[in-house]
């Protein structure tokens, strides 16, 4: 464990990523303390540009709401949407993909046909339909996003596992008397990790943006402030008040960047072949 941290911290990018993410998480947690007023409160005249008024550092939006408060409160929801739906997607996709790839044959066939079931409807369309059926509360938004994002994970993992299961070290592990579950979790998945980490770190962004697209179509939870909502809402005024979409866009970008840097750091730290560059 110690050495893992050491290796991780040797990657400067990863550390920067961790710092950014910590900052975002802190914003999410501290938002109710720093901005006790509802982020929906209309506090000033609309479309106040950033840095023009004390107390409203980042200006106001189309309804005169404090953008800074929105960003802070939005951090919580966006992180929640991004992380939870990614975790759920991984929690479904990885086992399904791993089982399919490892057992191959009939199980593979069954699991993959099952996956195809969810995969065949274009994901964005499926999300729309799901949200038309169920009331788009935050929970359902997350569920809908998870449902549409696990099939790629499953297929990716399956592809990797299909290839890894024939490796000799896997055979050796099975000779050591390891059960299938142990072989998959301890020998195959760790070696399939790099693409999964990449996909997962990209999926977080995807989820945040999907939430934004949905709320832009009026299918988000309109009672909850999120970055996605802010971007979606600012879209129509992009020509007159560019900062309204730029600021939450930057927030998403930085978060995504942070997660990717961390993902990369993880990949490096978990790869025993990458020895420290110093020395």
């Amino acid at each position, binding site marked *: 464990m110690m050495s893992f941290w050491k290796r991780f911290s040797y990657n400067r990018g990863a550390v920067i990523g961790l710092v950014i993410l910590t900052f975002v998480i802190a914003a999410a947690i501290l938002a109710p303390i720093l901005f006790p007023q509802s982020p929906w409160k209309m506090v000033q005249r609309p479309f106040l540009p950033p840095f023009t008024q004390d107390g409203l550092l980042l200006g106001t939006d189309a309804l005169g709401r404090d953008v800074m408060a929105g960003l802070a409160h939005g951090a919580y929801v966006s992180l929640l949407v991004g992380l939870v739906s990614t975790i759920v997607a991984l929690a479904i996709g990885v086992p399904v993909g791993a089982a399919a790839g490892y057992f191959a044959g009939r199980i593979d066939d069954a699991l993959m046909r099952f996956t195809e079931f969810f995969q065949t*409807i274009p994901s964005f369309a499926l999300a729309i339909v799901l949200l038309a059926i169920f009331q788009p509360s935050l929970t359902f938004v997350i569920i809908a996003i998870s449902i549409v994002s696990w099939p790629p994970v499953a297929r990716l993992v399956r592809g990797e596992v299909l290839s890894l299961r024939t490796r000799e070290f896997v055979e050796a592990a099975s000779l050591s008397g390891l059960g299938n579950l142990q072989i998959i979790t301890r020998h195959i998945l760790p070696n399939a990790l790099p693409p999964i980490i990449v996909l997962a770190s990209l999926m977080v962004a995807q989820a945040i943006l999907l939430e934004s697209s949905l709320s832009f179509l009026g299918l988000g939870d309109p009672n909850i402030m999120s970055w996605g909502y802010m971007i979606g809402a600012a879209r129509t005024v992009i020509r007159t008040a560019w900062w309204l979409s730029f600021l939450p866009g930057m927030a998403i970008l930085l978060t995504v960047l942070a997660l990717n840097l961390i993902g990369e750091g993880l990949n490096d730290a978990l790869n025993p072949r990458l020895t420290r560059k110093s020395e």
Partner: protein
Amino acid sequence: MIRFILGRLVKAVFILLAILVFNFLLIHAAPGDPAAVMAGEAGAADEKFLADLRARFGLDQPLYMQLWIYIKGAVQLDLGYSFRQQMPVAEMIGDRLPATLLLTGVAFVLSLVLGVTAGVAASARQGRWGDTIISTFALLFYATPLFWVALMATLVFSVWLEWLPGFGYSTIGAGYTGLAHVLDVAKHLILPASTLGLFFTAIYMRMTRASMLEVSRLDFVKTARAKGLNRGVIQRRHILRNALLPVITLAGLQAGQIFGGAILTETVFAWPGIGRLMFEAINQRDYNVILGVFYISAAMVLLFNLITDVIYVIVDPRIRLTT
């Protein structure tokens, strides 16, 4: 191999049917129906108007009858009529198909080529400036909402520089034919295709890069170096090939979504494609159109999944597939 493919194709037919039933139930579970939407648009409607519409669309029948009628048609490759447009769904899809295939196809090739190339380039410069720049750019395109990129691209290239048309499929009313038409369409294609393509580029780039780095530490790379091969060749022939598997998976996924993947892009760039048709159909509850598009897109997904599996075997001969 042939047996495997045939087996999958046979299965695909059954899956398609199952998916069809599922889709049918799914969209009928959404509130509202096409008659209500059309009445809504008219701004006024009485009972008779709605009843007439429903009778005309066959929506007055019990759900299982509607399902039965639809399935019966679908099995004979008859996708029914659009409630709204009074056109055969197959014809509507046929009309929109070329535009979508053109857009997503070009975007697909573009993103794949660009993404893999950038991924290779970045991995070769791991940890150095070039890597950082490429990675950051890719993420920039990935993490920026598509509509934002689209609008900015339109602003810059269409409004300010006036180089490219900002929307549409061809110059309306210009009446171009032959080569002029092709060039005209190509010009219209540039912005939407690159917007859509750049989004996927990041995925390929990152995946390629991570995978390449993983493979580049394996022993056979040392053998390749010992042969005196130069870096480029090693990167391409040895590392890339071994790193390709996850990229292929993702490409297969993207290719499968070649229909539905472009809803936003088609909307922003007024591209007369299937994605928009589908989106509008969902909003209008034009059941037959939605089902038709889903049906075709399901077939596409199944096909590309099959192709992906076959490519797996070609790329990695150690993988064995069984049905």
